[in-house]
């Protein structure tokens, strides 16, 4: 088995513009995904929007630089994640299309294998 991080990227402005009805459909889709994935899900959360992020990086001195916002200033940001355990990439690729973010025009799901530290 291997672990995969599913990073849900999208345009926060478009998520914010969704109606309660649209959110209900959205949440139902996530529920269907979680049901299909079952105990393959190791973890997963929705994240607060990008403006709530704080980034720490090298300031060129000994003291790290702390800045407001995400590392990359892009229209699309990280909106949430799942951590899945699966036998191979095809198993993940069968589940991921259940996520509503795969079908909206402004969002996408990135699948990243997690490094195994035996």
């Amino acid at each position, binding site marked *: 088995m*291997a672990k995969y991080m599913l990073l849900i990227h999208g345009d926060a402005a478009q998520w914010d513009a969704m109606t309660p009805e649209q959110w209900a459909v959205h949440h139902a889709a996530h529920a269907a995904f979680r049901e299909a994935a079952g105990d393959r899900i190791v973890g997963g959360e929705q994240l607060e929007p990008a403006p709530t992020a704080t980034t720490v990086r090298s300031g060129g001195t000994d003291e790290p630089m702390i800045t407001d916002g995400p590392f990359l200033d892009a229209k699309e940001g990280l909106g949430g994640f799942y951590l899945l355990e699966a*036998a*191979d*990439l*095809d198993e993940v*690729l*069968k589940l991921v299309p259940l996520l509503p973010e795969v079908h909206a025009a402004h969002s996408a799901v990135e*699948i990243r*294998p997690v490094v*195994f530290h*035996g």
Partner: protein
Amino acid sequence: MNDEVVAAVAEAHRREWARIVATTARLTRDLDLAEECAQDAYAQALRVWAESGVPQRPGGWLTEVARNRARDVMRREARFRRALPLLVTDETVPGPEDGLAADDRLRLIFTCCHPALDRATQVALTLRLVSGLSTAEVARAFLVREATMAARITRAKRKIATARIPYRVPSSDQLGTRVGAVLQVVHLIFTIGHTAPDGAQLVRRDLCTSAIDLARLLHLLMPTDTAVSALLALLLLNEARAASRLGPDGSLRLLADQDRSSWDAGLITEGVALLTDALRRATPTRYAVEAAIAAVHAEAPTWADTDWNEIIALYGVLRTMWPDSPVVQLNQAVAIGMRDGPQAGLDALEPLLGDPALATYQYLSAARADFLRRLGRQPEAATAYAEALTLTANDVERRYLAARLDEVVHG
């Protein structure tokens, strides 16, 4: 070294390479090691066969040697290899409902053409691992440096292992779309070979041969898949005319000027039979319609006898399957010009002139130039030929266009 042995090894390389890599990979669960062991087996064949003769089943001999070599390496490196990510292999045989034989070569092709790899990488890996082209040859097909291609292939193999792209024929619910990707890769290999995008040669024979071998292999392994049959038919019908595309002096011969007696009648018969069978069994795929167009050309006894009505109608069908392809529209416009005269052709090309997708497509300028020339509008024809010339990087095509340009300028 005796020629017979060299020829036997070359033949075994062409026919058996994919099977040997594929079978060995299932044992090693490591594409790199499988490839190395296959290479070793061929090197040994050159030595051993020269002494003791070519074995009755060269493929079996080579597979055995490659797998033995793999066992040795794995025993020696057992501790080291445990730390490496390995190919996910699946020993289960697909059920009869898949209609597929669990052939190792199919696993290899589907792994190389996995959608998690980009298209250029799929093509490169397929040429390297399935067709057995050297990294230098694959680099030449892509017009990149060998080191660049080696790095790309290494990265792809690493992704296959670390992202755990399975070494398996996809399950039936995914098979449809996955076969589509495989066919696109094979078609692309043929297209790159058919008119080399760059360089001194018009045709890259090695790539065309490789694509046809792959299509034949897929057809052998998936005989009931009509999209596979249609693609093989398309490639064979194009290949049948290959020898006549260049004159004795190496100059380009357009379809109208080709010596039809040099077309390969055997390939045409085979292509038409495959296509007919595919059309009888299922609704036509994109490749079937393209093959049908190639068949109409291949079966016309002379250029004047070409059934342009049929060709225009088939391009119409293709446009409904592929509505966003301006190239299909361009080809249909050219066919209209052949049926109804150069002015009609020019009119049909008109709506395409502003299409940004065709802005650097030399065949649009070349087609316009030809119609303008036939209408006697020589200065405009000259401009269009000059434009096509700046957009073409293939030397043989450049010589053809330059000669035509000279003709319309100097009469």
